[in-house]
């Protein structure tokens, strides 16, 4: 018996995927030519699976903020937030986030994963109750495992099902409902306003993960909570800097000033190095661009609608309406792997999403649209999908 025996099935699946051509797992891009183009070997690939929703990874002001931060603060912080790893870059970004969301508190974490891990597991403790959507991201499930609270799942995007589960709980302990604004695999959106009503009517607070929706939804890009008019009612809102913010890191904001206490208790905040000055500065610059340039959101939505309509016209089975993520449902895993390889050979990179990473055992070709995509690039992607037929 070896420690590595348990990975045998995963290894076999990975080797099997390689028999179709290139392995989709961790494929290296040799050079990034733009937010929507990369070089692999001697080929130029159109990227439409990178979560680069606002296309800011090569934005001049973002890059300038990064280089300025490196010159001012150096390459890394060499410490955690509570020790020597808090620079004014971090506190300035927290102030910027508070102002943008109208929040009483904002905490910046080193990654988006750590944000949910560090907040959810700390907020809900012994004797409390966590209620999570069944399609929650792995970091939410991991936060529940780390928490001492009892965890209950409710049916995906079903406020009535949540209501039933809340009503069955004992009167003891605090309650926290956790949902996502837009779900990353299918691109479907939560009925957040209904969830807020159900949570608050049953004595629970509500936490919404807007990792994929901040920057993309709402008049100011503040996510599904803003889009559905409940930003002021949501108790906690988290996000990541690794998508629309074109950097790495994460944040959680709250209307409750007491949220600041999480800094004193969250292990994912206390016991890890803080975000690099360059990453933090990039996130701040991206937030400014997000706020001042609503046309980025308009471009994103124009390209998304173009792509969604084109795929629908070709007869593909699309899981959700047009949005930053467009998921194409495939009949099985083998078809999805084969088509992913055909698309890559045709110079188009999409995400391959297969069980167990997907809800309901679904196999997907997952596309994420960028404001930086040109109409011609979307046409090229559609032509590649047409050649699959």
């Amino acid at each position, binding site marked *: 018996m070896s420690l590595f025996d348990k990975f045998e099935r995963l290894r076999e699946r990975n080797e099997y995927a390689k028999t179709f051509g290139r392995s989709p797992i961790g494929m290296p891009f040799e050079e990034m030519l733009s937010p929507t183009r990369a070089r692999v070997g001697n080929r130029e690939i159109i990227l439409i699976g990178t979560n680069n929703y606002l296309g800011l990874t090569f934005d001049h002001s973002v890059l300038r903020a990064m280089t300025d931060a490196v010159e001012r603060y150096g390459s890394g912080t060499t410490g955690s937030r509570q020790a020597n790893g808090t620079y004014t870059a971090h506190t300035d970004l927290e102030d910027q986030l508070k102002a943008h969301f109208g929040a009483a508190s904002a905490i910046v974490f080193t990654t988006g994963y750590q944000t949910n891990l560090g907040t959810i597991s700390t907020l809900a403790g012994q004797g409390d109750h966590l209620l999570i959507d069944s399609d929650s991201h792995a970091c939410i499930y991991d936060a*529940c495992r780390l928490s001492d609270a*009892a965890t*209950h*799942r409710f049916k995906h995007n079903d406020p009535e*099902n949540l209501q039933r*589960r809340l009503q*069955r709980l004992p009167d003891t302990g605090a309650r926290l409902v956790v949902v996502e604004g837009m779900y990353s695999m299918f691109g479907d959106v939560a009925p957040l306003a209904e969830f807020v009503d159900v949570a608050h009517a049953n004595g629970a607070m509500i936490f919404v993960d807007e990792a994929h929706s901040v920057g993309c939804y709402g008049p100011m890009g503040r996510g599904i909570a803003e889009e559905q008019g409940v930003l002021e009612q949501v108790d906690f809102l988290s996000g990541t800097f690794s998508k629309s913010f074109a950097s790495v890191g994460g944040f959680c904001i709250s209307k409750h000033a007491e949220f600041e206490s999480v800094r004193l208790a969250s292990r994912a905040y206390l016991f890890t190095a803080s975000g690099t000055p360059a990453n933090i500065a990039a996130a701040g610059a991206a937030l400014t661009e997000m706020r001042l340039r609503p046309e980025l959101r308009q471009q994103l939505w124009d390209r998304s609608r173009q792509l969604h309509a084109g795929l629908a016209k070709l007869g593909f089975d699309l899981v959700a309406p047009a949005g930053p993520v467009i998921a194409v449902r495939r009949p099985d895993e083998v078809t999805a792997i084969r088509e992913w390889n055909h698309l890559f050979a045709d110079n188009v990179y999409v995400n391959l999403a297969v069980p167990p990473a997907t809800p*309901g055992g679904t196999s997907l070709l997952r596309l994420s649209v960028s404001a930086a995509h040109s109409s011609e690039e979307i046409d090229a992607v559609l032509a590649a999908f047409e050649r699959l037929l």
Partner: protein
Amino acid sequence: MNVDSTVFQSIRTILSGYVDGAHEIAPHTRIIADLEIDSVNVFDLIMEIEDANDVSISMETISTIHTVGELTDVVESLIRAK
């Protein structure tokens, strides 16, 4: 546990909707290993059992349940605790 109990009978009825008729459903039957119910269906199954008995089984408790008998014991104890 008592195989004539209402809870066991209701769980057996619900489980039978997730497996073909060839499988025996007894207290010692292992839910995943013997009935070959995958993790996606386990979630739906647990939710149906919760709704039928008006109880809520936490994920932490679910991870400790292996057999139909253990599931019945958990549901019965949650009903008694109400």
